[in-house]
């Protein structure tokens, strides 16, 4: 009775076995090919990281400068501003006053304010002239009084200033205090006159008007300069590690030591690449954190119009930064490999900066938008994605395209570097009859 059962079972078990075998061999493949490759990559990566962490240059350029750049800049700005503020406080504000409503009351209050030099305008057309003087910075503020002619009609106070000039901003805050006193005084007078409380809120209305158009422009520039600065920091953060792991390795004669390790050359280069990317990214994150902190805490303290960059979608910014870090690190590593020594690499720093910053600063132009074409141009694509992300506009297909092309370019760069370090001229530091040696000679001269 058991026989048919067994027969029935047989094919099943064998197919199960086959499945297990298949699974096992797949597992084996993954284990051997992938995991061991990753393990080796990881070992190399950790070694490179350790070397970099023990180097002062790298730590200064990739960690210290990005971290302390903004606090230092802002500290300097802060000192300068408090100095300027001191001057401004001792300076008298020129304020033009137009209109005659309750002018006596205002005049009495202004009499106690020696820091405000008031000019009374009565003739027709004077207001127009005052406005143009204000926009040129000749005049610090205009106060216009209207209404209040009939009983119960509110008095309007128009306070016009120009935030493009610091003197005007301080004149505005001085006048605000005066207007407050003016308002209180009017309340008191009205209360005495009418004996009623209800009309009080009707008594005075204040309108402020800023005639400056610069504010928007300066914010716009700042919101583009800050990302640019962030990118400059990123390049700086990647350059020293790249130089140290490529040219430095040659200089310290550890290249052959690395080459005789039982790993393929692309893993060696990839390990270096990952270490450089890590440092670039750390520089980027530290810089971003420092920037955010500085803008939020220091600028608010000194009462400066904060720049309007939104840091709400932080992770997307980090992603955009990673794009850029990945691309720039690949390029820098390849360039650093062509330098024979650390010193020579440093002399290549300036042209490299120029070459990399140029496509990045192209993104300052608002007309340039991420398109299928630009998504295929290395560095520019990552910089554009970064900018778009900062402006919170996500064009996902193009972002994915940028990601794909960036990976391809990075792979090309790594392949090139792997080939390059296998060259004899690289091993012995004598590149001949190539454009590298041409560039090198130029860099030397």
């Amino acid at each position, binding site marked *: 009775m058991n026989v048919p059962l067994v027969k029935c079972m047989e094919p099943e078990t064998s197919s199960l076995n086959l499945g297990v075998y298949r699974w096992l061999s797949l597992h084996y493949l993954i284990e051997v090919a992938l995991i061991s490759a990753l393990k*080796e990559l990881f*070992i*190399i990566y950790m*070694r490179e990281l*350790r*070397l970099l962490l*023990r*180097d002062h240059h790298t730590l200064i350029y990739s960690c210290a400068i990005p971290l302390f750049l903004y606090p230092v800049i802002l500290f300097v700005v802060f000192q300068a501003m408090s100095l300027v503020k001191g001057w401004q406080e001792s300076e008298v504000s020129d304020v033009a006053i137009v209109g005659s409503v309750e002018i006596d009351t205002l005049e009495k209050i202004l009499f106690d304010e020696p820091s405000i030099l008031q000019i009374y305008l009565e003739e027709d057309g004077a207001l127009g002239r005052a406005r143009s003087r204000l926009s040129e910075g000749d005049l610090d503020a205009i106060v216009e009084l209207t209404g209040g002619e009939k009983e119960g009609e509110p008095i309007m106070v128009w306070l016009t200033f120009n935030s493009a000039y610091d003197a005007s901003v301080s004149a505005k805050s001085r006048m605000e205090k005066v207007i407050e006193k003016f308002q209180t005084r009017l309340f008191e007078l009205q209360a005495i006159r009418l004996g009623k409380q209800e009309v009080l809120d009707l008594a005075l209305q204040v309108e402020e008007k800023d005639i400056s158009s610069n504010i928007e422009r300066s914010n716009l520039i700042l919101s583009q300069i800050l990302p640019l600065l962030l990118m400059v920091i990123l390049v700086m953060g990647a350059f020293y590690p790249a130089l140290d792991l490529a040219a430095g390795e040659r200089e*310290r*004669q*550890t*290249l*052959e*030591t690395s*080459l*005789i*390790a*039982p*790993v*393929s050359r692309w893993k060696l280069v990839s390990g270096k690449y990952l270490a450089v990317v890590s440092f670039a990214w750390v520089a980027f994150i530290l810089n971003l954190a420092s920037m955010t902190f500085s803008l939020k805490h220091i600028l608010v303290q000194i009462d400066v119009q904060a720049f309007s960059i939104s840091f709400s979608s932080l992770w997307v910014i980090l992603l955009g930064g990673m794009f850029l870090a990945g691309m720039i690190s690949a390029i820098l590593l390849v360039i650093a490999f062509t330098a024979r020594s650390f010193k020579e690499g440093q002399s290549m720093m300036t042209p490299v900066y120029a070459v990399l910053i140029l496509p990045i600063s192209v993104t300052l132009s608002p007309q340039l938008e991420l398109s299928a074409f630009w998504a295929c141009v290395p560095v520019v694509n990552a910089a554009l994605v970064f900018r778009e992300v900062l402006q919170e506009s996500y064009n996902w297909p193009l972002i994915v395209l940028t990601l794909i092309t960036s990976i391809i370019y990075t792979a090309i760069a790594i392949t090139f570097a792997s080939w390059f370090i*296998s060259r*004899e001229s690289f*091993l012995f530091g*004598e590149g*001949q009859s190539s454009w590298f040696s041409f560039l090198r000679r130029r860099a030397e001269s």
Partner: protein
Amino acid sequence: MNSSQLAERQSSEKLQRENNRAIQVEGLTKTFHDQERGLVTAVDQISFHCDYGEVVGLLGPNGAGKTTTLRMLSTVLAPTRGSAFIAGKSVENDPLEVRKNIGYLSANTNLYLRLTPRETLKYFGSLHGLKGEQLDQKIAELLSVFQMEDFADVRCEKLSTGMRQKVSIARTVVHDPPVLILDEPTLGLDILVASTMMKFIEQFKERGKCILFSTHIMGEVEKLCDRIAVIHRGQLLALDSLQGLRDQTQEQYLEDIFFSLIQDEVKDGSR
């Protein structure tokens, strides 16, 4: 069995034998394109072999091509012509396997100075597939064999030349390779450290390993080597035991043998 089958069998037997050799070099040649000197033949059609349990010394004046030869064997340089097999693996086609089977040391394989000896051994050990307790044990063993325990956790940049050389040799043998290729391993060492190095090579040989090393010190070669290779201007002039070389040149001391071989070559060249 016809003749072609016989030839095939013979050649396969030869291959078998050669595969069992530690080092098998056939017509190895390296030329450099030098900007000043034009084409330089650093190594010129060298053929030889080394077996397991054998120490072979490579002697030659400066610029003879010793380093270049050893570099090709270590897969750092690709040969221009010819072939080389180490532990049966082709230097050209299977460089990864070759690197797994050799320990290579030369003046150009400096240590990572920012790492400590322990970290250095850990790095190379783990790349060679050692892990966990096995790795720790191996490191502890090497540290005690080379008396490096005192400075095992000091960065190599702070160590003396001798200490560094000890770390380097420990690094080359961390994976217990069957073949050791050493380019002037005693360069810059005092006689104490140098003799430690020589003792180590001897022990390595006794464990059935093959060691090929170059040097300028005749005493080391006389004392240690089973066979001696003399190379000059990229060419292998002789490869024999000390006694064999004595018979060949009718000289007693290695120094004289060396001069005699090289002067013959100079005379040949001037003729």
